[in-house]
């Protein structure tokens, strides 16, 4: 009698385990879609795509016949464009508590999609994956404040710049450093795969021109995953580097947040930031032409300026320096 009882108990236990695993496996499909849903819905609530027919963008006439199999063709057929964004980078891109995205780049990307007449969705690969190219069609374009550089142009196609940010050197407050030269021989922290790293290494090249400034004598670079971690490392009390080079907007955000950071000297260079497309994917040439037309329009009608003032508090859409 005992034997039968434990046999049944054992059987039901095994069945329960199998059922639990099976349920887990079944719901995984559902989990995938729900996890991505908020991302694609985010911009919809801000700018309903259904009310943005192509006729709203008269100045950006489509090229006579998009190359069959080109990126523009692919996006128009799908009715959706997927944008890569790095939500660790406010005010360009960050998460809201509801899990949506917001920021300057998000607004620009959403506006481009709206004027293309397609919906927008977001992917969040890490920065070095975006700049490395070979996206494999996982996302269609990057509106990620990417600087146009020669090495990146080998794998990516760029639009015209949509705004320009000053690169600002900063120092740890208690380091006592107040000038750019004060960082001579010091270690400077930058985000991985950034133009700030290239500048420190003396290899920054915008393609048509190069910055005229040179790094402090004998300064060396160290990298963290993303720019902001440098400032956070200082707050945590780390002293293994004294300088931090990032965009002036990021440096200002850190200062506003009460981190032990001071801006040092004038901006060391101004970088042209553009929309990027993958060269290894469907031919992006039509798309570049189309996006350039849309950006020119957004420059002309003040949309970009309004967005810049909303997120940065100043107009960064004109070339400076």
């Amino acid at each position: 009698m005992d034997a039968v009882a434990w046999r049944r108990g054992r059987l039901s236990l095994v069945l329960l385990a199998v059922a639990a695993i099976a349920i887990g496996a079944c719901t995984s499909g559902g989990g995938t879609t729900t996890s991505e849903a908020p991302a694609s819905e985010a911009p919809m609530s801000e700018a309903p795509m259904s009310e943005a027919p192509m006729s709203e963008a008269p100045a950006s006439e489509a090229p006579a016949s998009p190359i069959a199999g080109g990126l523009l063709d692919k996006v128009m057929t799908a009715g959706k464009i997927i944008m890569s964004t790095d939500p660790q980078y406010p005010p360009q891109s960050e998460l809201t508590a509801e899990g949506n995205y917001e920021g300057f780049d998000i607004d620009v990307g959403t506006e481009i999609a709206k004027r293309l007449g397609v919906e927008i969705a977001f992917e969040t690969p890490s920065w070095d994956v975006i700049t490395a190219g070979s996206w494999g069609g996982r996302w269609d374009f990057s509106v990620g404040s990417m600087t146009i550089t020669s090495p990146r142009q080998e794998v990516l196609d760029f639009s015209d710049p949509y705004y320009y940010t000053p690169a600002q050197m900063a120092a740890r407050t208690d380091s006592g450093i107040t000038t750019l030269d004060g960082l001579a021989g010091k270690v400077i922290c930058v985000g991985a795969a950034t133009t700030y790293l290239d500048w420190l290494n003396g290899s920054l090249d915008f393609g048509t021109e190069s910055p005229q400034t040179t790094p402090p004598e004998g300064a060396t670079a160290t990298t963290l995953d993303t720019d902001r971690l440098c400032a956070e490392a200082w707050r945590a009390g780390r002293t293994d580097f004294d300088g931090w080079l990032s965009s002036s907007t990021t440096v200002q955000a850190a200062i506003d947040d009460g981190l032990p950071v001071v801006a040092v000297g004038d901006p060391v260079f101004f970088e042209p930031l553009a929309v990027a497309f993958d060269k290894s994917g469907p031919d992006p040439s039509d798309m570049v032409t189309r996006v350039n037309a849309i950006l020119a329009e957004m420059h002309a009608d003040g949309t970009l300026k309004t967005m810049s003032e909303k997120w940065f508090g100043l107009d960064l859409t004109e070339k400076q320096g």
Partner: protein
Amino acid sequence: MGIGRGEQIGTAVAPGRVHQTMDPIVDQIARQRSRKQVRFRLTVFGTWIVLIGVLIGGLWLGGKINLDFLRQWQAYILGGVPLTLVISASSIFFACILAIFGALGRLSSNAVVYGVASFYVSLVRGTPLIVQILFIYLALPQIWQGFAGIPAITLGIFALSFNYGAYMTEIFRAGIQAIPRGQIDAAHAIGMTDRLTMRRVVLPQAIRIVTPAIGNEFIAMVKDSALVSIISVQELLWRAQTVGASKFRTLETLLLAALVYWVLTIAFSLLQDRLEKRMAESDRRI
């Protein structure tokens, strides 16, 4: 009377009943022991509470933790827990399937089948899991473009299953080999074929033997699932890290993520304990 007592001692094999029939002194010693045990457990529990209180209270009193920030973001960060669990559960499921085939291959007398199985186990166990995940996400699409169309979460589950399948192959192999040779001989003697022996005699017992081990692997998987955050699967760690980095608040978010993993691990360990006891119980009754 005397005979009755003698009979009782003779039949009192169940350990739980022994001291009831013994002298009062023995009874007292047993009670003292159990009281000591209870006191020990209570002290351990108390120490835990104090340690947790000191850790969290210290950080909070030191003004290091911004509770308002956590309150604002906890819903979003904790929203990654279901995904973490779904990834872990489905990865363990597929890993089990891989492991069964892996184990049968490792026990096969066919040299090619054995070769394939041992190659799989060696390849996976000889490379870091994080390399496997990055390779599947970044490198494979460059070999075959179609791979890029697969969502990152599927690739993450694939990488975890592929990895754990190899480790669990050894667990399943041990489970199958734990069945005494005599049972297989006996099955053959009554005319069962190899296949039938495997299905009716070996596998049912082997599955019971490895079930607690699968539970262990699941607990390890819950923690390793954090690795798929590097291919931008938006599970618990990805959410914690992204929120933390962009708001300069990694202390709060990583602390929250660590606590959640810890609580999950404790909860599943308790389940695992019960499962293991249950399995051991049936062994004892045999």
